């Protein structure tokens, strides 16, 4: 008779891939967690397919596992959440990895834009907009990226890059962010650090 398992028994395995095989390859629990991990994979690589070319041979896309597995281990060690900051933490991990020199500004902006977009469709606070800034000392200056929640039913979230006449100060950490409860950016409240 097989062991009775409930979903709550699998919660650690859902976020710590190294524990996946403890469930027994080919068990229903293993497949349940495999299905969940595929969602994390798709959430990253479907939105940022350029990541798949970082380690592909001759410019061909790879399966992304040389990024996905070590990043998920990094995330598990630090207890990172998989909220809108997921993409920004991938960039943080990339900057400390062997892929660093292959990550260009366009790919970094794709990751930052993905984070802003995810915030715009998942955040339930009164804020309507989010601005993300990068520390220019790390990889040179990048434009600010803003994400806006849907302002009407017909549209969707909006993402834009901002080049200010008077640049904001650098955030103290690789990424800084702030939110606004109005549809215009008329003041700078200061950078917030990237949350875990």
């Amino acid at each position, binding site marked *: 008779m097989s062991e009775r*398992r*409930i979903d709550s028994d699998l919660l650690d395995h859902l976020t710590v891939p190294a524990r996946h095989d403890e469930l027994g390859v080919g068990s229903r629990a293993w*497949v349940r967690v*495999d299905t969940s991990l595929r969602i994390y994979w798709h959430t990253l690589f479907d939105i940022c397919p350029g990541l798949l070319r970082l380690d592909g041979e001759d410019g061909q896309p790879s399966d992304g596992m040389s990024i996905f597995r070590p990043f998920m281990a990094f995330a598990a060690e630090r207890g*990172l959440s*998989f909220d809108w900051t997921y993409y920004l933490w991938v960039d943080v991990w990339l900057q400390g990895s062997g892929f660093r020199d292959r990550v260009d500004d366009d790919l970094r902006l794709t990751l930052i834009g993905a984070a802003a977009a995810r915030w715009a*469709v998942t955040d*339930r*606070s009164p804020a309507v907009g989010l601005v993300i800034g990068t520390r220019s000392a790390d990889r040179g200056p990048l434009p600010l990226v803003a994400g806006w929640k*849907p302002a009407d039913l017909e549209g969707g979230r909006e993402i834009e890059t901002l080049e200010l006449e008077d640049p904001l100060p650098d955030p103290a950490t690789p990424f800084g962010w702030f939110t606004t409860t109005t549809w215009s950016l008329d003041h700078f409240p200061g950078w917030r650090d990237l949350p875990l």
Partner: protein
Amino acid sequence: MRIGFNFTLGATAPMVRRLIAAGRIDYVELLVDNFLAVPPAQIAAAFDAPVGLHIMFSKFMERPEAELDELAMRLTAIIRETRPIYVSDHIARFTHRGRHLLHLAEIDYPGAFERVADRVARWQDRLGCTIAFENYPSIMDGGRDAPDFFRRLTARTGCTVLFDVSNAVCATHNCGLPFEAWTEVIRSARQFHVAGYDHSVGQPPIVLDTHDRALAADTRAALALCRALVTDPEATITYERDDDLDEDRIIADIDTLRAVMGREPAHV
């Protein structure tokens, strides 16, 4: 029964309006927390049909009290303006050890009952209305505890069940929970969901609530059982589709749904 279609974000609005104009649907279910930044009056005026309000990410069991108060304030403004035919929400785990889950997890029904009942009662108080809570597309064995949990929860809190027919079919495949185990819940429910499902890539296959294809044969059979148990003509069933948004295929499925569950289309 009244037949509805889910509306989650902008691009499908024209199709939804065509479904309304053709008499194929009687109401629109709005995934309301996607529209919290939209003025309530605009939400109320968006469609020439009644609306149901479906809440996806209130996370009412996990969100801090002050945030829930603030969220409730904005939701109640929308409820006042739209006068929905129902308000519904989800009972699931959205986080674990503070980490956000991208694939929601099922709760431990017996172990969590008291806490969930308390949170459900307070969430209904905050929104000032009865809330219909949706059953989960169970994968693991704990899903077998779900029917009894929902019976106890409705008795304790006065909430109702949004009975997702295809989620129950998923549970039948995955953990062997007989569809008939839901009979008492179905008799008391007034709101229903249904959608297509798919099988996992991994083996042995599990059944996943994907909202991306036509209704399966066993889902249609389960619908017929529900139809026999539900006599209220004001009861609602929402056809959910989030992918493969081909209008002709959606119309074919909605017409199938209406043939099983509802009145004939008004003027197709």
